[in-house]
C-alpha cells in the first residue's frame, strides 16, 4: 500500500520509501517522509491530484506519482 491509497482523514505509518528515481526518494526523506513517521491525508483537490498530506505538523502537497514512492 502507498500514500495514494489513504482515504481523507486516514493516518498511517510510513514503512519505507521506494522509487525508481532515487533523487525523489532522497528528496522526500529530506522533507521528513522517513520510516516510522505517521502521515494523514488531508485533501484531494478537484482533480484528485496533487494530494495534501499532514506530516510532522506541516501540510505538504505531493503529486500522485510522488506519493506512490512512499510505502505504508
Amino acid at each position, binding site marked *: 500500500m502507498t500514500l495514494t491509497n489513504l482515504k481523507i482523514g486516514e493516518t498511517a505509518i510510513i514503512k519505507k520509501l521506494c522509487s525508481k*528515481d532515487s*533523487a*525523489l526518494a*532522497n*528528496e*522526500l*526523506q*529530506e*522533507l*521528513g517522509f*522517513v*520510516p*516510522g*513517521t505517521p502521515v494523514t491525508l*488531508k*485533501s*484531494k*483537490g*478537484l*482533480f484528485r*491530484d*496533487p494530494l*495534501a498530506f499532514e*506530516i*510532522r*505538523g*506541516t*501540510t*505538504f*502537497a*505531493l*503529486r500522485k506519482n*510522488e506519493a506512490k514512492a512512499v510505502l505504508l
Partner: protein
Amino acid sequence: MKKVCLIGAQNAGKSTLFNKLSCMHAQTANYAGATVSFQKSKFKKRYKLDAEIVDTPGLTSLNGQSPEQVATVDTLFNEEVADLYIAVIDSTQLSRQLLLIEQLRDCGFPLLVCLTNKDTLLKGGQILDIKSLEERLKAPCILVDSHEASVAQYITAAIDKRLTQLKDQTTELDRSKLADLDARQLYIDIDDFLKKKQNIEKPKKETWIDKVLLHPILGIFCFFGIMFALFTSIYTFSAWPMDQVDALFDFLIESSSSQFNEGLGTDFLNNGIIEGLRSVFLFLPQIIILFFFLGLLEDSGYLARASMLIDKPLSMIGLNGRSFVPLLSGFACAIPAMMAARTIRNPLERLSTLFIIPIMTCAARLPVYVLLVAFIAPKEKPWMGGLIMTSLYFTSILLGIILATIISIVFRKKEKQPSFFQLEIPSIKRPLLAVVTKSTYQRSLHYIKKAGPIIIVISISLWTLTTFPRVNGEAAEVEKSYAASVGKFLEPAVKPMGMDWRGGVSMIMGFAAREVFVQSLTLMYRENEAPKNELVSSASTPPQEIVASEGIDEEEQEQLDLLETMRTVTFAGTSTKIFTLSSCIGLMFFFTIALQCFPTVAVAKQESASWKFALVQLFGLTGIAYLGAIAIVQGLRALGVK
C-alpha cells in the same frame, strides 16, 4: 562590520524577523551564475547594533535538490560567510525543522537558534525544554513571538550577547560533513530526542478554512472568486493614483516649459527625459496594487493552496503548479514575475513558464488596449468595451496555454529530468502588513531598477530620432525626421497589418514601454491637424469639431482628440482610412503577444542564463504577433470587415 545571517525553512518566520530587524532600504544581492538573491540590510538604528543582516531563501535541508536550494547552499558556503547565523525554526514544527539546524551545527555554523511561533505553542499548552535543546544544538536558543512589539529588541540583545561570546572566533565551515548526514538517521534521532526530552503533543489545528479552500468544488469557486476580486480591485484602486502620477508629470512639463526658453534643451528635457520618466512611473500604481494583493494572498498562505489546486491542469500543458504565482505576477509586470519562476525545479517547465510570462496582460498594455477598445466599441454600448477587454485577457491566457502545449510537445522527449511538485502548504494566517508592504516594495523596485534605465535610454533615443535632422536650426517636422525615414523604410512591412509608416514608428517606439505607443500616435498624427500638411488634403472628411463639454478634463479631451484623429487619418495620397475595425483588431493581437519590452528581454537572459533563449523568445513572440496580426487583418478584410 559584523555580519549576521538568517537561515531557516520557508515558513519558519524568517522574513518576518528580517523585516522587524532591518531598516527599509534592503539591498538585493545577486550572485554570478546563480539564480538566487539574498536580501541585505543594516539593523534598524534604534537597536544600536552595528552589523549587517542577511536574509536567505527558505531551506528545508542543506542537501536539498532544487536549483534554488543548491544555489543558496553554495552561496552560504562560499560567498556569504557570516559571523553569526540565526537559525529560525517554528517551535511547533521541531520534528521537521530541526533537521536543518542539526546539519548547520555539524557543518560548523556558529548559531543562535530562534524558535518562533511561541504564541501557538503556548496556546496548545506545550512547554519546550530549552536547556536540553541548547545542549543538543550546542547553541543558545530563544523562544519568541513575532507579533510582540518587543521581539526585535529581545533578539538584538541575544545577537549582541552571542556575538560577544564568539568574539575572536572566525567562521570555518566544513561542507564535507554534509555527505555523512543521512536525513533518515537524523530524523530518527530527532524523533527520539523529542520523545524523550520534550513533551510536545502534535498540535491539532484542523481549521474549517482549509476544509473550504481545499474542497474539490468549493475550493474552485473560492479560487475564481479570489482571482476575480484581485483583478477588479486593480482597476478600482489604481485609477486615482494613476491620474495623480499623470498630473504630476503634466505639471513637471508645464513648469519646465514656463521656466526655460523654448529650444532644443527644453524639448529634450520635456519630451526626452520627463516623458521617459512618465512611462516608467505611470504603471507603478497598478504594479504596486497587484503586488500588494498578491503579497496578502501569499503571506496568508492562499497562493500555495491555489498552486496545488491548479497543478493538475498546468501539468497537462507542460507547466507546474509552481508556475502559477509567476504567471499571475505577469499580469502586473513580467520582470519580477520571471524572477518568481526560480522555485520551479524542472528546467523545461521553468523555461516554458518564462517563455509565456510576457504574454500575460501586464500593466503596460492597458493604455494601448483602453485606446483601441474605445476606438472600436460603439459609444452607445459601453458594455461592449468591458467585453472586449475581458476577451483580451482570455486571449492572452489562451495563447499562453497553446504556446506552453507546443513547447511541451516539441521538447518533452528530450527532457530527462523528472517533474517535481512537492509544495509545503503553510497554515492559513492573518497576513502581516509589514511583510506584505516590504515584499511589494521590493518587487516594485525590481521593476523600476530593471526597466527604468532602459526605458529612459530608449525614450531619449526616440526623441533624438524624431527631432533630428534639424533644418536651419529649427526642429524638423516629424514627417522629415530620422524616425520618419526609418518608418518609411519599414512601411512595406507594416502595411499588411493595415498600418502606415507612422503607425509603424509608433509600434517600434512601443519597445521602450508599450504605452509609449499611445503617446507616439499622438505625436505622429498630430501633423494632421495642421491644414498646410499635404496629408490632410487627402482627408475629404474634415476633422469633426469636438465640443469640449463641461466635466471633461484635459486628459480625457486628449484621448478624445486622438480618437477623432484616428477616425480621420488616411494613407498618404489616398482616402483609405488607416484605423479600421480590422486594423485595430490586428493591433490588439500584436500587442497581446509581441515581446515589446526590452527590459523583459534583459531579465529573460538573466533568468535563463542564455542569450539564445532570450533572443528566440524576443523574435519568436514578436514574429508570431506580426504574422498573426497580418493574417487577422487580411482575413477580416477578405470577409468584408473594413
